[in-house]
C-alpha cells in the first residue's frame, strides 16, 4: 500500500486498541464513543480513497489527486517540467459565499429572519460558483 494511506491506517491502528483499553480501564462512555468515531472516520477515509482509486487505475487527474500514482518509480527521471495546467482565474464567489455564511450565522444569533437573506445569497453563490466552473 502507498505511503499516504498508510498514514491513516497507522492512526487507526493506534486509536482502535486505545479505544478498547480506554473502555476496559474506565468504562467511560463519551470518550469511548469519540475514540471509536475516530477509528471509523479514519477507516472511511481509507475505504473511500481505495474505492476511488480502483475505479481509475490510470493515473488520471482524480487518482493523481489522491496520490495513487507510484511516485517512487518516477523519481529516477531527471529534470522535469510541470505539465501545462490551467489554473482558475479570480472569482468573487468564495468571498460572497463566506458573507452568506456570516449573514446566515447572524440568523442563529439574532433570530431566523436573518437567515433568509443569508440563505438566498448562499444559493446565489452556489449557482454562480458552479456555473463558473462549468464555463471553464
Amino acid at each position, binding site marked *: 500500500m502507498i*505511503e*499516504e494511506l498508510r*498514514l*491513516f491506517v*497507522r*492512526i487507526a491502528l*493506534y*486509536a482502535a486498541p*486505545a479505544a478498547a*483499553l*480506554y473502555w476496559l*480501564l*474506565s468504562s*467511560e462512555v*463519551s*470518550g469511548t464513543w*469519540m*475514540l471509536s468515531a*475516530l477509528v471509523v*472516520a*479514519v477507516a472511511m477515509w481509507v475505504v473511500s480513497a481505495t474505492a476511488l482509486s480502483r475505479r481509475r487505475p490510470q493515473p488520471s487527474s482524480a487518482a*493523481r*489527486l*489522491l*496520490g495513487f500514482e507510484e*511516485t*517512487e518509480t*518516477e*523519481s529516477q*527521471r*531527471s*529534470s*522535469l*517540467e*510541470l505539465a*501545462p*495546467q*490551467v*489554473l*482558475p*482565474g*479570480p*472569482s*468573487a*464567489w*468564495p*468571498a460572497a*459565499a*463566506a*458573507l452568506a*455564511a*456570516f449573514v446566515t*450565522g*447572524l440568523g*442563529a*444569533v*439574532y433570530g431566523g429572519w436573518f437567515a433568509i437573506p443569508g440563505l438566498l445569497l448562499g444559493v446565489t453563490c452556489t449557482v454562480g*460558483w458552479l456555473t463558473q*466552473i462549468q464555463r471553464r
Partner: protein
Amino acid sequence: MATLEHSVPRTAGGLLEWFTSVDHKKIGILYLSSALVFFVLSGILALVMRSELAQPGLQLVDRQTYAQLFTMHGTGMMFFFGTPMVIGLANYFVPLHIGAPDVAFPRLNAFAFWLTLAGAVMAFAGFLTATGAAAFGWTAYAPLSGDAYSPGTGADLWIIGVALSGVAGVLAAVNLLATIFGMRAPGMSMLRMSIFNWNIVVTSILIAFSFPALTVALALLWADRNLGSSFFEPAGGGDPVLYQHLFWFFGHPEVYILILPFFGIVTEIIPVFSRKPVFGYKGFVFATLLIGAYSFSVWAHHMFTTGAVDGPFFSATSMLIAVPTGIKFFNWIGTMWGGKIRFQTPMLFCAGFLFMFLMGGITGVFLASPPLDYFVHDTYYVVAHLHYVLFGGSVFAMFAGLYYWIPKMSGRMLSEGLGKLHFVLLLVGMNAAFFPMHQLGIDGMQRRIPDYPASFGYAQENLVSTAGAFLIALAVLVFFINLFVSLRRGPLAGDDPWGGYTLEWATTSPPPHHNFHRLPPIRSARPVFDERRENAQAGPEGGSP
C-alpha cells in the same frame, strides 16, 4: 532547459484583486495578515489584563470586562491568530515545497479564508453589543456558558463565530491534504518531502478529525442556549463533563495543531543555517506521526480535577508524548552538531525556540501527573506553561519562519539589525512576563482573576510580569517597523538568500503566478542543494554550495 509559458489568468487589479484572488500565495498572505492583526488585537487585550494585574486592587477595568478580556485573548490567539497563521504559512509554502502550481482546490481555499475571517469578525463583534463579548474563557465550559449564566448575545456571537472558523479550518485541512497527496511534482515522493510538509500533513489530519468534536460541542451548546435542550444542564438530565470531553477531544489536538507546523519550520531552518541535512529525517517523520496519533488519546489530562476521568490512562498517554518530542530535540541538536552555524535572525529565533520550548515541554510533564495537576491546575502555573509552549514555542518559531520566508514572499530582505533587536527584546520580555507566573501558580494564584488581595503576596511577581508584557509589546513594535521599512527599502533578496534546500528557493522572489518556470531534478529531500552542488562541481564559477 525549456521554460513553460502558462496562461496567466486575468486579474481584477487593485484592492478588488485581494477579494477575488484564488492564488494560494495571495490567500496565504491574506491569512498571514489577518492572523497578525488578531495577534496584535489579542495582544492588546493581554496588555490591558497585565496592566490591571500589575498591582492589587481593581484600577483599570471592572470584573465583567476582565472576563471578556481573557476570553477574547485566548479565543483570538488560538482560533484567529494561531490556526490561521499555521494555515496561511501552509497555504503559501506547501505548493512551493512540493513543486505544484497551486493547491488542489483554489476556490475552496479562498472560501476557507473568508469564512475564517467572517468567524473572527463575528466573535470579536461581541465587544460592540450592549452586554459585551463572551466572558466564559476560551474553553466556554457549560453550564457557565449556558443562557442562564451568560445571557448576552456576545456569547452566541462567540459560538457561531468560532463554529464558522472551525468549519473553515476543516475545509482548509482537506484542501492541504489533497494538495500534498495529489499534486507533488514528479520525483517528489512522500519521503522526499520537506519536514515542514510532513508536519502540515499530520496537522491537517489532526484538524480534519478533531475540529468536528468542537463543532458538535458548540452545536449542542447553542441548542442548550437557544432551543431549550439540556445536553449540558444537570437540571435537565445533562452532564457538564460531557461538554469538557467534547471540547478537549478537540482542544488537545488543537495545541498540537499550533505547535507541529512550527516544529516543521524550525526543522527547515536549522539545517539550512547549519549547512547540513537534517539529522534523522525518518526519525522526524516517525516522531511527528507518533505525536499526531498520541494527541488523540490524551484529551482528559485537562480534566484530572473533575475526578470523572481515568487518571492513570491519561497520565500514561500524555507522558508518552514526551518521547517523540525528545527525539525531535536530540535530532535538532544532531543537526547542528558538526555544522557551521550562521546566526542570522531566523536561526536566532530558532535558538530561542529551542530553549523556551524545552522549558514549556518540561513543565508539561509535571501537569501530566495527576497528583501534581491537582495542585497546580487552573493556577498561573498553567498560564506559564502554556505561554512557554505557545509563545516561547510557536511564536518564536513563527518569527523565525517570517524572517526566513518574508524575503521569498516579498522579494526584499528584512533588516538584520532590527531583527536582532526584536529577538533580544522578545526573549527578555517573554521570560520576564511568563517565568514569574510559575511561582505565582505554586503560591496559589488562580488563573482568570482580575484582582488579588495585597496580603497574598503576589504583587512583586505580577509587577515584573507586567513589565515583561510591555517589553514584548515593544519587541513586536520593532518587528512591525522592520516590516514596514524593509518591505519598501530592504535590499533585494534574490532567488535564494539563505542557501536553501527546498524548492521554494528554486524560483523567483516573489514566485510567479504559476510558481515555477522550471524545477530542478528531485532526487532527495534537498533538490535545490543537490543542484547547487552539481553546478559547483561542473564549473568552477559555481562557487561553493
